[in-house]
């Protein structure tokens, strides 16, 4: 009897469902998201697949889920009413934040409202010093008083963050006990459980976010699991975390902060798998949808991760220098650079007479002008229609019809005429400017980290990724673009191919060469013990538990750090010397310079990552591809003033089994791929379109 893994990826407009069997064959379903309760659409969509493909529900093995429910609660400020208990003197840490603002010269800047208002933030007398010594005992009467006040205010959950609790969690744990005794119905999160690391703002913000979304995530997952039971799908539900690994529903309900960036992570994991299968060491993943484009770096089969990021910071070019927007979350996440460029991005003329693209988007309503829903502002989709790249009659396999006349009118009136350019020239200019905006995301993950993007292959997916990838590759002089099958549903494949993964980090500040080896080894041992306990709790046998360790290091006195892998086994003096050298090499590679031998290297923290491997590897098979049997159509497409209009063949993916010279446009249900003149495309053994930019 075959068994099925079911991937479910929720987006703002669509919920994608993919069933994959043991042999890696898959069935896909796209249904409208039910925003009041996302579970409804998931259940309905799955029921359809079960019925249509006559699959026995007992054959369902597991449900793998990427969800925006936690990030939406945060972005729309619809999380739970939350209280905060903190050390006397530090009531406003959450609201003062880091003082930093993301926009310069802007008197209109407003800080995001604090997730816990000041009247729900209570102080208690207590103090632990930086080494964990208790200086002032916990005043339990004040704790009781604070809890009573918060209960009277009907908070649903209480966050607790005390100063230096990472060094000694005793007071926080005692407060947790008191909450349990005094307010048994009230949920709570203590910072020493959530993020036992130095820096009170980051720890407070992360703990509060976790508390704020916890009841929402718990309600959602409970309801989803109940619904699955109701339709007799009694499988475990695993969730995609921001770090690119899966977690159990139980763990996600306890630490929902880990699933905030669930959606975007899945696509990168898909690209990671693709890179491993193809044996490509250097890959940049590029995911472009309707409103945003995201880039991420994959090296030697590993994704790159950020230790900290902001949720809801908005999307702006240059934002890596300007922090301070959104809500700070210090949990490991796949490092994504995002820009506000997508099919719906509006093309406009600035007061200096220059054409601009985005970041404003026409959204789903009114959408691009060519949707005929009343939109008059031209978008990137309109420009693509004018250029002949998008077939107005073939969006979503012809289920959506576009009006090319409306696209032309909008482009002509709002862009071409003001610029004094003819229509195709203006549309092509907009296409290139959009590409150059997105190039900044690619640079953010490559050249800004000392990586030369020319050495990387671009894996393009999302509804618009394959349309823009080749144009960007040209500008950046990348040699190869890879468009996986079902590129528009690619994130769902990422879900199906991920492993369970947990991260454990501990602050440990020591000079590398002066570190006490036994202390170092003891700490690593403790972290691995925690990691093992977690995997055991999830039911992984020893053979399917794998650990990797990393040290975060910098030159003493530096403020930022770099991650370097830590050798396996008990650490020796030699291993530490090698670690110091490896750090120097990484510093040189990333920043182009390193310090001399006389400058000591300092460990900042140690991280252990636990991987829980599935019984059978999760790998999709090559898709069954259709060929158009030589009945290739064509239409005119515009490729810039040097080339002009060309009669361009329209192909199916299967047609590219033979090497095809550009220009060529591949039309599929969920995405359109553009192969420009001069480039050549051919399918590989896995059904990927591989485009050689230089032909």
């Amino acid at each position, binding site marked *: 009897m075959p068994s099925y893994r079911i991937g479910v990826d929720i987006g703002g407009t669509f919920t994608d469902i993919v069933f994959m069997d043991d042999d890696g064959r898959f069935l896909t379903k796209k249904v409208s998201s039910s925003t009041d309760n996302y579970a409804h659409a998931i259940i309905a969509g799955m029921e359809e697949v079960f019925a249509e493909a006559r699959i026995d529900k007992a054959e369902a093995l597991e449900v793998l889920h990427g969800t925006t429910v936690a990030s939406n609660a945060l972005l729309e400020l619809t999380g739970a009413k939350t209280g905060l208990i903190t050390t*006397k*003197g530090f009531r*406003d*840490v959450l*609201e*003062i*934040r880091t*003082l*930093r*603002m993301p926009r*310069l*010269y802007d*008197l209109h*800047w*407003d800080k995001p409202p604090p997730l816990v208002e*000041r*009247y729900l933030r209570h102080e208690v007398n207590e103090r632990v010093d*930086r080494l964990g010594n208790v200086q002032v005992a916990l005043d339990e009467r004040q704790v009781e008083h604070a809890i009573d006040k918060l209960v009277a205010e009907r908070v649903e959950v209480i966050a607790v963050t005390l*100063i*230096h609790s990472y060094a000694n969690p005793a007071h926080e744990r005692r407060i947790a006990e008191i909450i349990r005794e005094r307010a048994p119905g009230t949920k709570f999160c203590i910072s020493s459980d959530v993020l036992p690391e*130095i*820096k*009170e*703002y980051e720890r407070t913000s992360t703990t509060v976010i976790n508390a704020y979304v916890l009841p929402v995530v718990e309600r959602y997952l409970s309801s989803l699991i109940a619904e699955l039971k109701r339709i007799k799908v009694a499988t475990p539900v695993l969730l995609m975390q921001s770090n690119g690994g899966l977690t159990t529903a139980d763990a996600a309900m306890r630490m929902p902060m880990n699933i905030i960036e669930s959606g975007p992570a899945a696509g990168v994991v898909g690209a990671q798998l693709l890179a491993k299968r193809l044996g490509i060491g250097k890959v940049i993943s590029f995911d472009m949808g309707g409103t945003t484009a995201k880039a991420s770096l994959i090296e030697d089969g590993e994704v790159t991760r950020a230790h900290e990021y902001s949720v809801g910071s908005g999307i702006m070019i*240059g934002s890596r*220098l*300007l*922090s301070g927007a959104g809500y700070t979350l210090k949990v490991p996440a796949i490092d994504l650079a995002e820009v506000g460029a997508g099919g719906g991005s509006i093309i406009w*003329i*600035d*007061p*200096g*007479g*220059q*054409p*601009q693209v985005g970041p404003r988007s026409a959204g789903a309503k009114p959408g691009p002008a060519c949707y005929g829903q009343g939109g008059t502002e031209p978008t990137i989709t309109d420009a693509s229609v004018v250029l002949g790249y998008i077939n107005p009659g073939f969006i979503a396999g012809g289920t959506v019809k576009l009006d090319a006349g409306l696209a032309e009118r909008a482009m002509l009136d709002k862009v071409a005429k*003001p*610029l004094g350019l003819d229509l195709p*020239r203006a549309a*092509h*200019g907009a296409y*290139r400017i959009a590409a*150059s*905006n997105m190039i*900044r995301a690619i*640079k953010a993950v490559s*050249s*800004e980290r000392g990586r030369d993007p020319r050495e990387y292959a671009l894996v393009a997916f999302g509804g618009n990724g394959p349309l823009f990838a080749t144009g960007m590759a040209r500008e950046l002089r990348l040699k190869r673009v890879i468009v996986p099958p079902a590129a528009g549903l690619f994130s769902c494949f990422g879900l199906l191919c991920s492993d369970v993964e947990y991260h454990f980090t501990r602050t440990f*500040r020591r000079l590398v060469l002066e570190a006490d080896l036994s202390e170092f080894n003891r700490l690593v041992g403790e972290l691995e013990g925690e990691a093992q306990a977690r995997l055991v709790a999830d039911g992984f046998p020893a053979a399917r538990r794998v650990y990797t360790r990393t040290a975060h290091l910098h*030159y003493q*006195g*530096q*403020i*930022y750090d770099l991650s370097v892998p830590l050798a396996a086994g008990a650490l020796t003096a030699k291993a530490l010397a090698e670690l110091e050298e490896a750090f120097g090499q990484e*510093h040189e590679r990333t*920043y*182009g*310079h390193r*310090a001399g031998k006389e*400058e000591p290297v300092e460990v900042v923290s140690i991280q252990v990552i636990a991987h829980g491997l599935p019984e059978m590897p999760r790998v999709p098979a090559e898709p069954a591809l259709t060929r158009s049997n030589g009945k290739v159509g064509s239409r005119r497409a515009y490729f810039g003033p040097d080339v002009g209009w060309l009669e361009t063949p329209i192909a199916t993916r299967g047609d590219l089994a033979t090497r095809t010279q550009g220009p060529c446009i591949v039309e599929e249900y969920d995405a359109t791929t553009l192969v420009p003149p001069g480039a050549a495309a051919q399918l590989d053994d896995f059904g990927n379109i591989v485009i050689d930019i230089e032909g």
Partner: protein
Amino acid sequence: MQERNPAIDPIEFELFKNAIFSVADEMALTIHRTTYSGVLRDNMDYSTAFCDAQGKLVAQGLTLPGHLGSMPTALAAVMKKFADNMHEGDIFALNDPFEGGMHLPDIFVFKPIFFAGRRLAIASTICHHTDVGGRVPGSNASDSTEIYQEGLRIAPMKIYERGVANETFFTFLERNVRVPVKVFGDLRAQLAACHIAEQAFLDLTRHLGAERIVALMAELIEYSERMTRAAIGTLPDGVFDFEDFIDDDGIDVGKPIRLYVKITKQGEKITADWTGTSPQVKGAINNTWSYTRSASLCAIRSILGVDIPNNEGVFRCVEVIAPPGTIANGVLPAACAARGLTGFRMVDTMFGALAKMVPDRVMASSDGGNSGVSIGGYDKNRKPFIFVDFTCSAWGGRPWADGLDGNSNIFANMAGQSCEVIEAENPVEIPCYEFIPDTMGPGKYRGGAPFRRDYRLLEEEAVLQVRSDRRTFRPYGLFGGQPGKPSMNYLDPDGANTVLVSKFCMNLKRGDVFRHEVAGAGGYGDPLERAPEAVVKDARNEMVSLEAARNDYGVIVDPRTWTHDAAATARRRAELKALRRGLTAPPVLRQPWPDAIAAE
């Protein structure tokens, strides 16, 4: 919309603009991520830019408003000396405020970029270094009285000549700074940033050709100029002036220092004339002209309301006059290490004048900018420690919203330091870091809230140095909005609670606690017009006491239901209006109303 240059393809231009600013930001990130200096990281106290072959600013990265316009002045000094002696592989540096610099900790590094033997551009960086020698650790003292006390002065010079390091320079530097490892680490970051800029620029040049690059750089300047002119053109013409005072310079204690600006707006040009500003002072708060220009530009840019690329084109539309020998343009031997204070206060002065031009686009006075607290000394092993903390918090009320609580001043882009990290790295404990209720200038839109921070010394002994202001001259309110509460300093707040002056240097003993309170920002508009719900919210959050709600805002708050009593509020507001005896508030309030009126 303005006319474009018909010879320039708008698409190619937009792509170029994107590319060149992305390189400027990439340079900034290189410095940001490898820095050794908390000042660099937390205060974003560095900048990166591209200038053209003549030293005109083409593109500046997004970092510190306080550096806007500093590059061309510094480059002009290099050009003056080396225009005919500039070769491939040369790298220049300087920090002398009297020959292109800003203050001594700011070291500029420039690398001219050559293509086929022709100089096309100059990669430019400026970083605030941890220490450049002088009498006080950090080289940042406000109580120096001549530049010779402030550290090593670097005249414009080659630190690399045709690719070869100038060992004399590096040796001198190494022997004259307290923490050479940090200084050299940050210098390496500046050199790496210039190197990255060179690679990227040459790549772009190979792609586009030298002639196109030169034309596109020129057009980028023109483009900013067109944008700026258009934006200025929409503002009302006229002459608008404002005066404000710095409490004192810490040397001549109690002697106010006048800041006076006259803004003349005519057509598409603005002039900010600081003639009438106080003569330069003994204390180290004298500006260079370039810093006065940065402050003037920051305020003007903030009211233009459009996103304009920072470059020479903006400078062309804004003239800044600062007579030599004034605090706005110090001459030798003026000390200037702590001139940040004057810059922040000049931004407030600019907003005061601009309030008369565009009352709906400015904010009331902020908290006055950074206060600087430094605690330094030696531990029992004679190992030095230097702890420097800059704090600012409150924006003035705005015509459409309250001032921000707990936010960097608009002239900076700084982050606060984590209390836990401070304690982990210094013999200092932070007993509290919190907002101070009832300190925000009342207004229809109130001023932002300041915070207090306490510091307890854990070592045997140390020197505490404080640079603060806005004690005597409180942050002003606008159009009926009231001034914020003054900035305060205390010793031993939970015991004797001795009040300290605003600028001083003193010895601390183990266990001593110093408390600094930032000033509250000024309000905007009549507090009696404030929405009662907003007052209730502040009261519930314990930011405004019930008494202040009643007396400053005329709102009667019921603390059981957290609502306001509408009838009682109307009565109270009528009562408070009657107390004004028909007088109207002047546009600018420096003292609480209506006492200020009575005094007049």
